């Protein structure tokens, strides 16, 4: 297998992709394309709204002490999870971080299962044992939120290695932050994946901060895509606040990976609107900077674009909002009612064999 040469071109959203999974759409008539595009955009919008409203509710629930532990919000970064997930099939694998509500919801894990997990209930997607930072769903090949920065990256390479060795046409998508880029585990894995030509999509969510440390205070060379390319893989920097640009880049990368071009790296330039976690007093960044980025809100950006093109009526938007709000309401209601895991089951799932007396 040949390893693609490093390239840092930023694929633009408008440029027709050469070898993308969505390429077949170009075959239909112009009107059909427009309608399909409109429907697709509405789906992107709905997916981003779901994450946003879900997390806004999490903030309220945290204040009410219904949810505890570390909770890291994705608000502002929704375009990344939604755009990238569009490029993945149900058979692909996903490895995530502790900031993974967005990845989990975009992957199709029901809001009810995620909310129940935040409540620590037995019906949660990890049986209440993981909480916000450890959402898992094996049936969706969602290999979890990992709370050790960069801890999931080598694991993702292993998933990709298995697919590679079995010649399965799957991509493993691994999300991680700019902070994780500094860890040895990222660099060791990047080299390994390029060396072995693994079907791995490395998705770096560059939100410009690792907790309180700004990118230029933790990286000597802040052009992350260029550095990734130095390992001998294709790497692009993409506007992570534009869901369609993200989707287009992710489709191109996933298509190339499926065609055997080896690992690809996407640096998605984005921003978290909220503090790092519920414990963070957010003292290290300028309020004006946060406001500047909020003006680039990926949800507003998409709705504006749809409105301009006459593709989004106020009624349609209200309908989407209502639908998402009801879904979140139902998730909270279900989590409230859900049973707790009995304390007698504390020792379950430590090893595969049931504990004695089970």
């Amino acid at each position, binding site marked *: 297998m040949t390893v693609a040469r490093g390239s840092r071109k930023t694929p633009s959203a408008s440029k027709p992709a050469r070898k993308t999974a969505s390429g077949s759409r170009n075959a239909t008539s112009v009107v059909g394309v427009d309608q399909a595009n409109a429907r697709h955009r509405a789906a992107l919008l709905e997916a981003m709204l779901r994450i946003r409203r879900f997390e806004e509710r999490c903030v309220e629930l945290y204040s009410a002490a219904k949810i505890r532990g570390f909770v890291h919000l994705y608000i502002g970064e929704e375009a990344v999870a939604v755009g990238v997930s569009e490029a993945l099939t149900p058979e692909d694998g996903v490895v995530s971080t502790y900031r993974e509500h967005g990845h989990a919801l975009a992957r199709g894990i029901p809001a009810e299962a995620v909310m129940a997990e935040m409540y620590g209930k037995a019906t949660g997607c990890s049986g209440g044992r*993981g909480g916000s930072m450890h959402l898992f769903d094996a049936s969706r090949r969602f290999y979890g939120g990992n709370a050790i920065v960069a801890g999931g990256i080598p694991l993702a390479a292993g998933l990709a290695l298995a697919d590679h060795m079995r010649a399965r046409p799957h991509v493993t998508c691994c999300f991680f932050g700019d902070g994780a880029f500094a860890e040895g585990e990222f660099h060791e894995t990047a080299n390994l994946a390029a060396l072995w030509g693994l079907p791995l999509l490395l998705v770096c969510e560059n939100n410009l901060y690792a*907790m309180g440390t700004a990118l230029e205070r933790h990286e000597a060379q802040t052009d992350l895509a260029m550095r990734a390319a130095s390992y001998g893989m294709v790497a692009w920097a993409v506007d992570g606040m534009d869901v369609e640009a993200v989707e287009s880049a992710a489709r191109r990368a996933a298509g190339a990976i499926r065609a055997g071009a080896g690992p690809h790296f996407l640096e998605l330039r984005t921003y978290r609107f909220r503090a790092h976690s519920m414990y963070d007093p957010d003292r290290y960044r300028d309020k004006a900077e946060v406001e500047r980025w909020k003006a680039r809100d990926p949800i507003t950006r998409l709705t504006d674009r749809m409105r301009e093109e006459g593709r989004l009526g106020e009624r349609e938007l209200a309908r989407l909002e209502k639908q998402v709000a009801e879904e979140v309401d139902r998730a909270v209601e279900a989590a409230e009612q859900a049973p707790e895991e009995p304390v007698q089951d504390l020792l379950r799932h*430590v090893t595969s064999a049931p504990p004695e007396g089970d």
Partner: protein
Amino acid sequence: MAAGRRPREAETTYREALREALREALRSDDRVFLMGEDVGRYGGCFGVSLGLLEEFGPERVRDTPLSESAFVGAGIGAALAGLRPIVEIMTVNFSLLALDQILNNAATLLHMSGGQLPVPLVIRMTTGAGRQLAAQHSHSLEGWYAHIPGIRVVAPATIDDARTMLAPALTDPDPVLIFEHGSLYNASGELDASAPPVGLDHAAVRRPGTDVSLIAYGGSLPKALDAADELATDGISAEVLDLRTLRPLDDAAIASSVARTHRAVVIDEAWRSGSLAAEVSARIAEDSFYELDAPVERVCSAEVPIPYARRLEEAALPQTADVVAAAHRAVG
């Protein structure tokens, strides 16, 4: 000592006491510097170093990238070259990314070099569970580190120890690991500024008693003290021994406590198998076998990765009631 001028009754927190100790160290020795993730601009992930960047500047309060192995290794190198680094690792959970540097370099260089290369390095980190942070953020691995010859391991559990253990750690010619239990940062109390320095060699009797020794350290000390209160209402006089230094263990203090009470309960938030509690129990069996009136009891965490859900986490961790029950079993 700066703190000597503070009023005796000053209420302070464990966090502030640690900060005061850091401030004093940075003021009194220009070879000392602090480095770690978010120690500067952010003020430390638990707020311990808040304000120190402003006071000492970015050379001496150094933010690092997320590169535990690299900055711990750099701390070892700087110590070899004559500086006195204090390296902060956010939590023990992430120290595993630096375990190779700690075990294969810091702990071995003196010996491998035939005594030529001492490593006067201090590494601080948070440890422990109890805040619903789930399995990857709740480890108590100080017992692992206490397994390693060549390093000293300490666990300040009181405001006074938070204030006073750093200075002797910095004068120790060898690596010292300081474990701060996450549940202690907000603990507040009076700092006894006039108390003489206690050093790093000895365990401390935090409450004298005659019927049973409750042997604890770090985040388990408050639970042991609460248990002793409760036992007192049942007419049982419990002595509480705070180990303070986990390596080397103060064997004499353990033996003399058991000689007074003839019964021992060891409390350790780590898992029971292969734990520090196992080591302490073995030493009691070796040194004090004929003093014992009952088998040694251990109160440790359940053998499970610490779960997120509140009830499950509480059930997994040693609780005061478990200590009380163990003491009752020992007393019979």
